[in-house]
């Protein structure tokens, strides 16, 4: 059985906490699983916690942007939380600004953001 990132459901929201070093296949699998889960649960919001990620390169960055864009089309809002400062500095220098991706510092603030949007 292939390795997968778990997607937790909390009412009308989905919560994904990435706890492993993402290889490309796993990132693509998550994108696929998450868009299906949004549709299956008619989720209104998705919270992606990347506090455990020590590296976000252009591939993972693109995956995050794509998930956010696909979610929007499916009617779900995505909030990215927990990015480490060193990762943020590196991403901007790399040339990725994650334009269009909503972010919050912590899971709590991210959830507040999603709940406020009713």
């Amino acid at each position, binding site marked *: 059985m292939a390795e997968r990132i778990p997607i937790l459901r909390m009412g009308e929201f989905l919560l994904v906490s990435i706890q492993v070093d993402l290889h490309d296949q796993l990132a693509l699998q998550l994108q696929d699983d998450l868009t299906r889960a949004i549709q299956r649960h008619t989720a209104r919001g998705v919270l992606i916690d990347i506090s455990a990620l020590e*590296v976000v*390169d252009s591939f993972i960055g693109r995956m995050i942007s794509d998930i956010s864009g696909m979610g929007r089309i499916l009617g779900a809002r995505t909030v990215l939380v927990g990015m480490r400062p060193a990762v943020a500095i590196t991403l901007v220098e790399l040339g990725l600004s994650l334009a269009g991706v909503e972010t919050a510092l912590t899971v709590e603030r991210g959830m507040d953001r999603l709940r406020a949007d009713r």
Partner: protein
Amino acid sequence: MEIIRAPIRTSNDVVHARQLVRRGAQEAGLSLVDQTKIVTAASELARNTLTHGLGGEMTMEVVNAGARRGLRLTFVDEGPGIPDMKLALTDGWTSGNGLGMGLSGARRLVNDFEIESRVGEGTRVSVARWK
């Protein structure tokens, strides 16, 4: 530290390369931000070796130049090579399905960046980040 060699043949090898480079960057005494920069650059370059170079090898060593200490990484493949280097180093230009930030972005994340490529023979990229 001796020279460490790691094959880049699968997407798991890219993850393994990141882990090796993280340890090397710590050993070289780089700050957390600089560690993150060179690990991210390594991830971009290893993926290029895999997808454009059709696989190859990374070598890593902690280097000393006078009082300076740093980490040097070299990625070598025997793939098709890069026909237009200027274009390949342009932000946003991609020959595949990426964002086109890999090579140009990696270059911004390191202090030294050298690339040589011959069409039909392969590509060699050498980078270093200094403390």
